């Protein structure tokens, strides 16, 4: 004999359906935002159809190289996008100090990040001598996903002709 499900049982089933639907919607929106923001960020380096939105300049004063970089980002996703750059002291790396810029970009908004870095122990005739200058680039799709990329910027401190 089939018994009718109790009110509490139906409520639990309803909650289960709501949780599943909520998960599906959130995952779909995160996937869309991650794709759109990835295309946007890769576009600042000239990949894809977007025009580059990054400019860098290096000025030498004795054995110190001063790097300034402007990065323009547009948030094409559905969640706020947080972006920051910070210097990292890695073993064998050159001594570098940064202004550690950080910004949070709302949906459909554009922001420009001004990154300044002083690198000491650089010889303009020989560059970094093969030593890296590591920085951490943090990109966060608030509040769900955060990606940190550690990259070497020694290519910006080249040999002065």
């Amino acid at each position, binding site marked *: 004999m089939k018994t009718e499900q*109790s009110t*509490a049982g139906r409520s639990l089933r309803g909650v289960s359906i709501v949780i599943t639907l909520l998960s599906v919607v959130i*995952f779909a929106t995160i996937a869309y935002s991650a794709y759109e923001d990835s295309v946007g960020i890769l576009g600042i380096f000239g990949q894809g159809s977007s025009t580059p939105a990054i400019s860098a300049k290096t000025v030498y004063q004795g054995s110190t190289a001063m790097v300034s970089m402007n990065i323009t980002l547009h948030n094409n996703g559905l969640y706020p996008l947080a972006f920051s750059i910070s210097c990292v002291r890695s073993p064998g790396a050159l001594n570098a100090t940064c202004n550690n810029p950080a910004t949070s970009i709302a949906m459909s908004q554009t922001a420009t990040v001004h990154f300044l870095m002083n690198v000491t122990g650089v010889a303009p005739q020989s560059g970094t001598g093969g030593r890296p200058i590591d920085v951490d680039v943090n990109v966060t799709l608030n509040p769900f996903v955060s990606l940190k990329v550690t990259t070497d910027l020694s290519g910006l401190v080249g040999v002065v002709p």
Partner: protein
Amino acid sequence: MGEYVSWRSRILGAAFAAALNIFVWVVVPYFLYSDLLKLEPTAVSAAGSGIFSLDFIYTFGAIITGLEVMGALTNGMAVSVPLISGGYIASAYFTYALVNGGTFALEAAGLKFALSFQPLLFLLMLPSLFSAFKGPISFLLERTEAGRGASDLAG
């Protein structure tokens, strides 16, 4: 007692549970693992704390599939409740351990990547954890007076 479930429907349910669980918990993680190895052979050793391996995938895939299949074969019996709940708990732990608690790191193309997605991981585990909790509660409610409406208020 509970509703009668024929052995034919139990066996069909068990076959479906076996196919679905093998696909979700063995085949998909296997291809993810293979893709990660192709991306960067050292990436797998850097990812997580060494848990992400074929042995782990096969072991937990077998445990989850076994529990779900046994739960389907005992459908309608009280013993199916802990089996199915155990399968959900095992799948939640598998998800958590596979991605190292939501912190995933690897090196590729000279860059170091560190991905952190704990809130997303919780959202991924929530349906399994809720289902593990819902099963026993629903079973107890269906079989006790506390779960039924008062007969004098009916109609």
